[in-house]
């Protein structure tokens, strides 16, 4: 941090006036200090979690508390795999969140294409219906939804977990806003060349929608990867349980083993953080062009 501050401060100024230069330098230093403070404040729980996962139990539950570990251990990461079926939970979560993301991106963008680029009677009605669902609290449907899936014998199956999430009002809305912002020229040209609507969607529109698809993909993936309530309700044994549900069970059973809990928590956060870091460059672009303007 000190080097950054230094290089920022010695950058030559346009104005020769000594006082202005000092002021600008102080201002810039203050900005960097503020930036570091904000980053630290925001990341504190995650940093704490990371450190806690490497601490022995007695070093976490101690007074006075410290941020940095006084002792270091990898035992938490070794033991979590045996304390609960962690590998299985991981695989289940990946299967659930991965499938939902891929299927939903497909269905959402198809519906959005129709709503944004095609003309048909009833378009506004469908769109208003989607907006209504956007405002609907998910919890309101939980009980009847469980009943329905129970009657279809889909409780405790991946199908039952995935299919109700196969499309999403927010995803349709998000993609529609992006599609509205695309120019019409290429599509018209393709239509004149006799391309089918499916080909226009697949070969013209979707490639242009890459940043929006990546952004929405991150939303879908993180939402389902992190979701606690839905997998918890839909699974009755470990064979289909996901990590958040597994960790919550773990919390109940081994309530004192915080180090292990934090190791599991850190491992559970890794995929979404990695995915975010991978696509973050498309991210602002994805939101910027999604017609919020």
């Amino acid at each position, binding site marked *: 941090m000190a080097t*950054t501050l230094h290089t920022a401060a010695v950058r030559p100024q346009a104005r020769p006036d000594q006082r202005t230069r000092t002021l600008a330098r102080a201002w*810039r230093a203050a900005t*960097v200090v503020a*930036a*570091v403070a*904000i*980053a630290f404040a*925001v990341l*504190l*729980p*995650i940093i704490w979690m990371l450190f*806690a996962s490497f601490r022995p139990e007695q070093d976490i539950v101690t*007074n006075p*508390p410290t941020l940095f570990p006084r002792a270091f251990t990898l035992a938490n990461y070794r033991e979590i795999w045996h304390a609960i079926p962690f590998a299985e939970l991981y695989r289940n979560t990946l299967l659930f969140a991965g499938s939902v993301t891929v299927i939903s991106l497909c*269905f959402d963008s*198809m*519906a959005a294409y*129709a*709503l944004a*680029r*095609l*003309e*048909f009677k009833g378009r506004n009605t469908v769109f208003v219906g989607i907006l209504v*669902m956007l405002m*609907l*609290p998910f*919890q*309101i449907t*939980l*009980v*009847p*939804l469980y009943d*329905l899936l129970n009657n279809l014998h889909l409780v405790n199956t991946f199908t039952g977990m995935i*299919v*109700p999430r196969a*499309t999403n*009002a927010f995803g*349709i809305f998000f993609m529609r806003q992006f599609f*509205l912002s695309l120019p019409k020229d290429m599509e*018209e040209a393709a239509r*004149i060349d006799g391309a*089918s609507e499916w080909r226009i*969607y697949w070969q013209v529109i979707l490639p242009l929608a890459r940043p929006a698809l990546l952004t929405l993909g991150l939303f879908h993936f993180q939402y389902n990867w*992190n979701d606690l309530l839905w997998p918890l309700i839909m699974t009755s044994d470990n064979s289909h349980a996901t990590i*958040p549900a597994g*960790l*919550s069970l773990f*919390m109940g059973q081994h309530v004192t083993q915080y180090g292990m809990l934090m190791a599991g*928590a850190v491992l559970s*956060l890794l995929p979404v953080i990695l*995915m*975010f*870091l991978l696509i973050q460059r498309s*991210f*602002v672009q994805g*939101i*910027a062009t*999604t017609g*919020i*303007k």
Partner: protein
Amino acid sequence: MSLQITSHPPAAAAGRGSRPGGRPRGRLSYRGRQARAAWLFLTPSLVVLTVFVVYPMIQAGYLSFTSYNLVQAAQWVGLGNYRHMLHDPQVWNALRNTLVYAAVSTPVSVLLALALALFLNRAMALRGFLRSAVFLPFVVSLGVVSIAWSFLLDPDIGLLSDWLSHLGVTTQQGYLQDPSTAMAAVIAVGVWKNVGFYMIMYLAGLQSIPGELYDAARADGANAWQRLRNVTWPLLANQTMLITIMAAIGTLQAFDQIYVMTHGGPFFQTETLVMFTYRIGFENNQFGYAAAVSWVLLLLVFALSMVQFTYFRKRVVTF
């Protein structure tokens, strides 16, 4: 304006008059084929949404007039649940908490997001890192990270409690256990989680404002505050509308951090409508009553959206 239902892309209207070349295939006209294609594109989504969202929602409406408890068949009780609600102090408490949560959390989130976006829209060291850092809480699981927050706020071994006590802010019971601070703590975590997302939306808005407008304002002698007040803020009206709606709807539905950190306590001080619905539904098995309360929540969300919608619609500035 994005949320305007009537906003067609101008090109779509133009395309109708000048029909693209090529002979219409089959018996359907160009528009007929387009309509058929549109419905085919919509089918997967509409089937899923109808079966797994619309039907359960209607079913929830029906259940709200019954005494359903998942074990016995639903018994019709008419408006019984709704009448009971009027005299149930727990419902009024949950409603008040929900409104307090939303009324504090929404403006704080939106203003903080705007401040962060303005700060991070300038050229500065660490900008990319800082943007990612502020956004990171949004992608991590609130259910998981709430455990860390509870730990940091623990009265005996909590790091934050310890630091705050050095600053003279002390707590005997712990922030989550003290009825006067529990709500503030839960709100703070909710804001922490979402502010990065709203900040990114504001950043996107800031980047869409043409630089010439600022040059012109500078030429007219506008200072930084006047530029913010007269250029940035009005041109961000659409963003503000969308972010405020999303923030308000999100806060009305807050659940994870409350469930993990306080479970609605202490003394029901942080029990919001969703938490209440969960408790009486999934813990007390009163599904009929839970459905009735969730319909009240639904109406609340709608009313709020409509108020914001009409308010912001008048103030939209386009360029």
